[in-house]
């Protein structure tokens, strides 16, 4: 199949310059629970970001196709024109804003400092100074920890970070509150606690710089979905709360 944008006249959405006419091609990791992951392990691709993207595509009258790959390759795919949009809890920061376009945010949630239960030596971001945290490199939590003066060990993802924390090899990990909540929901025995949280961070869909028309349409779609309660509904499903504002 050729990915050159050779939209036919009657295909909808050809004004967006889509990778594949009539289809929104969405890049996502597929291994980042609860935002993008496989149900029952290797079942259907599900998750908060996945359903948001599906709702947006539906609203735009487009088919949807997911491309699953590692974080390393997600932005390379966007830039090389292999995908139209990234739906993977990409948080908005100045470096990224310089290179990509963002939709309006669909997740607003604080970052939290997670420690082992009973560890009283850390009770704020400032306390991370001189402590060791485990972060996945590609998240903005990495930056938060570094800024707080922590000694950061880079890991693959949440699971490894928690493993290190529980094995006592790091003092804390910084992550999205939603990730933490999902984890303790699945692992009620986990002896972890949140000791601090930031102001909320915003995550949004990311696009290549030349996709202004698409971004505009997506923003409108998000607005509609917000208005008709779909975003809140998806939030309820995964977190028991609306996290889109």
């Amino acid at each position, binding site marked *: 199949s050729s990915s050159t944008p050779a939209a036919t006249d009657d295909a909808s959405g050809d004004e967006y310059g889509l990778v594949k006419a009539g289809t929104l091609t969405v890049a996502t990791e*597929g291994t980042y629970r609860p935002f993008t992951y496989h149900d029952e392990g290797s079942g259907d691709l599900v998750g908060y970001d996945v359903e948001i993207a599906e709702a947006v595509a539906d609203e735009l009258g487009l088919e949807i196709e997911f491309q699953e790959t590692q974080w390393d390759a997600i932005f390379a795919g966007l830039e*090389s*024109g292999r995908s139209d949009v990234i739906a993977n809890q990409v948080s908005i920061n100045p470096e990224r804003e310089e290179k990509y376009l963002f939709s309006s945010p669909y997740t607003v949630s604080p970052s939290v400092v997670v420690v082992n239960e009973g560890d009283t030596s850390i009770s704020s971001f400032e306390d991370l100074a001189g402590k060791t945290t485990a972060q996945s490199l590609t998240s903005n939590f990495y930056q938060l920890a570094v800024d707080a003066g922590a000694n950061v060990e880079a890991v693959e993802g949440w699971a490894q970070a928690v493993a290190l924390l529980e094995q006592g090899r790091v003092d804390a990990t910084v992550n999205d509150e939603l990730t933490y909540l999902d984890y303790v929901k699945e692992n009620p025995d986990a002896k972890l606690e949140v000791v601090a949280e930031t102001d909320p961070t915003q995550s949004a869909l990311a696009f290549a710089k030349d996709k202004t028309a698409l971004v505009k349409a997506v923003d409108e779609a998000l607005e509609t979905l917000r208005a008709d309660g779909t975003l809140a509904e998806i939030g309820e499903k995964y977190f028991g709360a609306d996290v889109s504002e």
Partner: protein
Amino acid sequence: MDSSGWQLFLDSFWPIVWGGLGGTIPLALASFAIGIVLALVVALMRISKNRVLSGVARFYVSVIRGTPLLVQLFVIFYGMPAVGIVLDPWPSAIIAFSLNVGGYAAEIIRAAILSVPKGQWEAGYTIGMSSGTTLRRIILPQAARVSVPPLSNTFISLVKDTSLASLILVTELFRVSEEIAAFSQEFMLIYLEAALIYWLFCLVLSSGQSALERRLDRYVAV
């Protein structure tokens, strides 16, 4: 392993195996087959007296072996579109892995060809054969025998290296394990299971190697 762990292990087994049968194995087989042909060409180029040919071959081998496979994949899948070449995941993966095998196997094949005694070339010439015919009829069948063990090493490495293909959207054994690990957060258990399944595949493939060696050894005293 507690009973829920055991259950997860069992539930994951077939999905991971299918990831192997549907991704890892066909990808490895196709890339290996193409890579070997490429390697043969490169090996002959390196042996050739033509300075340009052997220089090109030497450079190719050096770059392939000197740079990470991950970057090679990246360049072919995410870099080539910049020059207007857009390939689908599977063709990209097969091209990248074939080029990689080509670089490693070329040196093995070159050594195997050189290990056939010079007298065999001369015996071919003296019965009137051209270099090409001698190569094909006399030298390569003998070189095959010597090169099976190292090539099977290359193949077994390839089987595991194909896990990088998930980077360019190909679903294979390890990708399936990562999905399960991400869902269940039981990465240690699942990765061990993946390792076990890789190992089983490799055992099967190694027994293929032994069979091939026996076949090629039929003309050698035991």
